[in-house]
């Protein structure tokens, strides 16, 4: 059943027609006649629908956009989206219905005698499902519209999507509430020796079950859904990506539980850490370092601070406490509606398509406070992730599961 018609009084309401108008206004300012979006984040931000298959949106200078996706999913996307089925079309391997023919057919009416500027989304990313226009797509589209010129224009949507509206914030809060339910289910399952005989995949699955029951659409991360690591896998050198394995949980080892839930394209992402059964003094020393660092980190995020300034403060603390060798030196990654992950802010840093270390955070930006502690020589590591909202004077952590590293 479709839930597309959210009214303005609904906490999760987002004004998508307003977003389209804002894009069209920016297109006019940038001299773009028609915008061709292809990134997953663009699809989510404009359609309010999850597009797991290669999809595109054609935004005209005025009026409604039209999206195309793989025909097997077009009716479902139309059912989820605020746009109707006449504006969500399917492509398939049929004459006139392939991606290039459809896109050219949608774009050409906005070119004058075949000439004009087509905004496109290209670049590179660490995130595999980013969805930049491929070279092949570009070559084929250029051949279909040889007199048109193409201009990389993703900055338009990156800029417009940076400051989050209330509907987006509320969706993230709900996704985080669901993640907390997943964490509670994990804790209930592993406490008092319940972890014995369990595997990492089982932990991931029982969390998923609890979160789905609470309304999560999926464990959205491309890193294997819920990331679970135990023992030496928690402390892989410079690591912060642990798809669950079939490894059995063992007494005396750390367990890292990194859960992901999605609610209306808003993303929950919270990691919690444990010791199974018992912990040595040395292990508890590592744990205290980590928890104290997270507390300081959450106190430090506020408008005006940048990734570099924050990292300087955090790394100074790690040096003071003598655990700098165990820190992966990064404290954040970007986040937005599904598909918007990793880079923070605009593509304006010293390295193309990486976070600008001097990006200055503003009120109502969101990011994942992400901290990884890794001590491979002692087979121990911890991860903290939590979506945070930059507020007027600080930040709000959206996942409320208590911060601690408990012996269970």
């Amino acid at each position, binding site marked *: 059943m479709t839930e597309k018609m959210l009214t303005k009084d609904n906490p999760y309401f987002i004004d998508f027609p307003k977003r389209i108008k804002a894009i069209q206004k920016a297109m006019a300012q940038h001299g773009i006649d028609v915008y061709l979006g292809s990134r997953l984040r663009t699809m989510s931000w404009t359609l309010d629908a999850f597009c797991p298959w290669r999809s595109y949106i054609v935004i005209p200078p005025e009026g409604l956009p039209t999206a195309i996706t793989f*025909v097997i999913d*077009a009716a479902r996307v139309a059912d989820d989206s605020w746009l109707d*089925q006449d504006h969500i079309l*399917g492509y398939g391997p*049929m*004459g*006139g*219905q392939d991606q290039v023919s459809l896109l050219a057919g949608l774009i050409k009416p906005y070119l004058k005698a075949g000439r004009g500027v087509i905004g496109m989304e290209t670049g590179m990313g660490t995130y595999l499902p980013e969805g930049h226009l491929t070279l092949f797509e570009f070559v084929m589209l250029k051949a279909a519209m040889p007199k048109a010129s193409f201009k990389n224009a993703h900055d338009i949507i990156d800029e417009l999507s940076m400051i989050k509206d209330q509907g987006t914030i509320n969706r993230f809060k709900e996704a985080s509430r669901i993640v907390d339910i997943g964490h509670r289910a994990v804790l209930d399952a592993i406490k008092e020796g319940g972890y014995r005989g369990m595997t990492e995949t089982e932990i991931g699955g029982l969390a998923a079950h609890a979160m789905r029951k609470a309304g999560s659409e999926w464990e959205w991360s491309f890193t294997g859904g819920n990331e679970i690591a135990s023992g030496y896998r928690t402390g892989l050198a410079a690591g912060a990506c642990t798809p669950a394995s079939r490894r059995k949980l063992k007494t005396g080892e750390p367990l890292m539980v990194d859960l992901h839930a999605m609610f209306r394209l808003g993303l929950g992402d919270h990691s919690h850490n444990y010791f199974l059964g018992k912990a040595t003094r040395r292990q508890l020393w590592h744990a205290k370092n980590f928890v104290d660092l997270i507390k300081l980190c959450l106190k430090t995020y506020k408008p005006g601070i940048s990734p570099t300034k924050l990292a300087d403060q955090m790394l100074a603390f790690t040096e003071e406490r003598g655990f700098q060798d165990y820190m992966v030196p990064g404290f954040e990654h970007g986040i937005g509606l599904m598909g918007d992950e990793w880079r923070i802010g605009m593509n304006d840093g010293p390295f193309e398509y990486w976070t600008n270390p001097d990006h200055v955070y503003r009120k109502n930006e969101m990011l994942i406070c992400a901290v990884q502690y890794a001590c491979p020589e002692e087979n121990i590591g911890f991860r903290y992730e939590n979506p945070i909202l930059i507020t007027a004077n600080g930040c709000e952590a959206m996942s409320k599961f208590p911060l601690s590293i408990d012996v269970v």
Partner: protein
Amino acid sequence: MSTKKFKYLSKEWAAEVEKRCKAKLSPEKMKHITSSMSTIYTNCPDGKTRAVFYKLTDGVVETVSIVEGTLPKAEFSITADYDLFAKISRAELKARSALMSGKMSLKGNLVKALTLSPTVDRLNEIIATVPTEY
């Protein structure tokens, strides 16, 4: 016994198709659809391009007409060579196979077109029964 043959894409042929469709295709069989479709024949034997325009209202085949020049507005248009359409009309080739081969081009909403394709197949089955001189 001689059977009268209709010249393919002639007005008489179109009238016969319409007559047979009305007689054989009930609104239930045609799923009560309301739609329109132009099949555009390129490279006809006389070198011209012409189209057959079909209009269905609530499952009733209202119109089958031959058009040269400006086409009436249709929800779907399918373009291919005369020879390819002739093969489909003789039931030697399925329309779906022709579309998948890329030799035939469809304009219109693919999701809707796929939903309607069984009813279009029924239409083609009727066309195949018309004694035709190609």
